[in-house]
């Protein structure tokens, strides 16, 4: 099932929380929803789940408008802050959620057992949710979202409060599930989207400011190739001059003259790797380092969302 969001708008008073955004998520795609706090991520997700109404525009899930049809059977949703009944044992809670999502009686037990296993809740399954650590509560939240094996998963900050090991596990889990499901997950942890998502959507002040894979976003932001090189040669001046003569190199910067480190910026749409290597070979210099300098996602994010 795919999700099509079409000119979606939502205002709170005079403030537009979501301002005329449109995008699609295909089946089997994991979309990372990125943005500063208050950018409209949660609002958009709440509209997809039908929890809050839209002002204008439309959301279609598998071709059905959520305005017309209740699509919650097909959606697994982990709300922000992961609200749970703390006085309920894990197993009872999962059974409650499964029956609300109309999991048939004969599949109920199997489905609950599966979720307990997948989310690593076996040891804790008879404890009350209130007695669990935050990491385990988060797993219960994920388990309840997926209990009816939904085709669509909407996860609002799924890894908050987890320790690094748990984060890796949960990411792995989402990746696996994402192969056959349509997933939207929001986060403001940038390495997370890179690690988990096929596509990134950055939104700021209710508008989409970037849309693409991590690589395409980098390319867009970066423009020219930047290489950091270190060359063992008799003098830095010589290297500096030679680098400057190369046709693909637009700019050379001396970073450290004792260690002979340089930063080169290639001219647009060209790479300099070949030419630098050949130059060293011809001159008998030793190329000890050549590192493509990547614009970090953090920088892209900051650039797009700083106001």
């Amino acid at each position: 099932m795919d999700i099509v969001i079409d000119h979606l708008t939502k205002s709170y008073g005079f403030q537009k929380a979501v301002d005329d955004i449109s995008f699609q998520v295909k089946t089997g795609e994991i979309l990372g929803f990125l943005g500063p706090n208050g950018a409209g991520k949660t609002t958009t997700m709440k509209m997809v789940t039908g929890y809050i109404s839209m002002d204008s525009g439309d959301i279609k899930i598998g071709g059905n408008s959520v305005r017309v049809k209740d699509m919650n059977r097909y959606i697994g949703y982990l709300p922000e802050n992961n609200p749970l009944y703390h006085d309920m044992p894990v197993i009872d809670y999962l059974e409650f959620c499964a029956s609300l999502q109309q999991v048939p009686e004969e599949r109920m037990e199997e489905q609950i057992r599966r979720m307990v296993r997948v989310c690593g809740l076996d040891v804790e399954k008879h404890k009350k949710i209130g007695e669990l650590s935050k990491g385990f509560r988060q797993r219960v939240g994920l388990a309840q979202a997926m209990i009816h094996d939904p085709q669509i998963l909407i996860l609002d900050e799924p890894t908050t409060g987890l320790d690094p090991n748990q984060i890796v596990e949960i990411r792995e889990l989402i990746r696996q599930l994402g192969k056959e499901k349509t997933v939207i997950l929001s986060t403001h942890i940038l390495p997370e989207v890179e690690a988990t998502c096929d596509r990134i959507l950055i939104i700021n002040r209710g508008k989409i400011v970037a849309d693409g894979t991590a690589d395409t976003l980098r390319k867009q932001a970066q423009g020219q190739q930047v290489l950091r090189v270190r060359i063992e040669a008799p003098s830095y001046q010589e290297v500096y001059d030679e680098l400057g003569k190369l046709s693909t190199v637009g700019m050379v910067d001396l970073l450290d003259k004792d260690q002979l480190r340089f930063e080169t910026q290639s001219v647009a749409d060209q790479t300099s790797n070949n030419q630098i290597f050949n130059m060293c070979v011809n001159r008998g210099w030793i190329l000890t380092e050549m590192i493509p300098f990547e614009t970090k996602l953090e920088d892209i994010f900051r650039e797009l969302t700083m106001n």
Partner: protein
Amino acid sequence: MMSAVWIIAKRELHSFFDSLVAYIMLIAFLGFTGFFTWLFGGDIFFRKEASLQVFFGVSFWTLFIFVPAITMRQLAEEKKTGTIEMLLTKSITDRQLILGKWLACFLLVGIALLFTMPYYISVARLGDIDHGATLSGYLALLLMSAVYISIGIFASSLSNNQIVSFLVALLIGIFFHFLFDVIASGTSGFISELMTTLSLSSHFESISRGVLDSKDLIYFISITIFGILMSEFVISKRN
């Protein structure tokens, strides 16, 4: 497949019994009604007739206080902890949620009344009890509870503070319980008639005395439905 209303009601009943609310409510209700029915003042033995009228009179007030105490957390707590979002993004409508909550409270009151069956049996063995009037007395208590539960759930939908919900429910309840009556006796003509019609106590009295009039039944049922619809309206305005 279980209906969503029943799934909600079942969880809520479990939660009543897990959190001691149910036991406190049952013990307090039985203690109160038992004390005033059997032991204190103008109790059942001074009546010189085998009837449970004293018990119905005491319950009329006890339930008035107790019902808001069990309804106050129904939606307020869900709103406060955010679990209402988790619930309403499942395959369940706002109405099913409200009806489930209502049903759970109603069943709890029903259980409490069931525990007073020994009163009925005792009195029946002591004398010649009017079975019809007694049963319709119980019916009156159930109908009254239905109305107050509905009002209580509406009050609970307004706030995410349980105490506020409790007080609002009592405030609305007071009008139905006796203020409309007071106003009716202080006015005349149309207003007086309207107030008498709105007053719960007059409808309660006629049923609890054993007079089953469709007008009274319609009154209780329509106010219950109105309260449920109002709660649904409030919950649907969640953005």
